């Protein structure tokens, strides 16, 4: 996948536990297609799984509301946004914080934006070394 300009790919899943796996599988496929090394593919899968899990467990609102996973493929990095359209969650809502610790350990950059009207957005970046 050549990417001189950014390419956006989006996936929407219901905010239910059994669909988090679907997001992970798609993430693996895309990361492999982008020729990330196997370890990085698994890291990105884990980060997306954690972000979606946070959305399922901590976002408030009906379960049938979607989680949007947006992959922004740039020439030198992959940006992933996991957005819930519930009432959002903030870092202090994230239980024992293990999910965030893990996301930050496997991605190059992680930030969380949240608000009562817009839901939460976890934005993560993985550099595409060697591309």
């Amino acid at each position, binding site marked *: 996948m050549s990417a001189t300009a950014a390419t956006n790919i989006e996936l929407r899943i219901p905010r239910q*536990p*059994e669909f*988090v*796996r679907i997001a*992970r599988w798609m993430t693996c496929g895309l990361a492999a297609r982008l020729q990330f090394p196997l*370890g990085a593919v*698994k890291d990105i*899968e*884990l980060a997306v*799984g*954690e972000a979606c*899990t946070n959305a*399922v*467990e901590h976002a408030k609102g009906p379960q049938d509301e979607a989680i949007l996973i947006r992959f922004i493929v740039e020439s030198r990095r992959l940006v992933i946004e996991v957005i819930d359209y519930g009432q959002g969650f903030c870092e202090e809502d994230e*239980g*024992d914080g*293990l*999910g965030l*610790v*893990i996301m930050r*350990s*496997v991605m190059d950059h992680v930030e969380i934006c949240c608000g009562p009207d817009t839901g939460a957005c976890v934005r993560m970046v993985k550099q595409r070394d060697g591309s």
Partner: protein
Amino acid sequence: MEIPLRIEARMEGEKVGVLSLSGEIDIATKDQVREAAEKLIAGGARSLLVDLAEVEYMDSSGLGVLKGLRSQLVEAGGKVGIVSPQSYVKKLFERSGLDQVFPIYDDLGAALEEAGR
């Protein structure tokens, strides 16, 4: 949708429960792990050995269940040990700092030997 986790639960002696897990431990399967462990505890297990040799994926959902079980058993004088995690899963324990909380064994024999002491 198929849930890709298989669980074998058994007692080794009167006080040690062994959970052998195979597949993926995530938000969709974590409750199966907790329920299987709680059945062993209800059946008399004071300590648990969780064999992760066949677990290909685990995230904070699985770690959270293990932490909860550990709290429950340590309070009663027992413990939770981790057996044979694959390298990526073992790294997850290290990344989360939980390798300092759970004993991690290379094989079930060594874990059982220590649990029997």
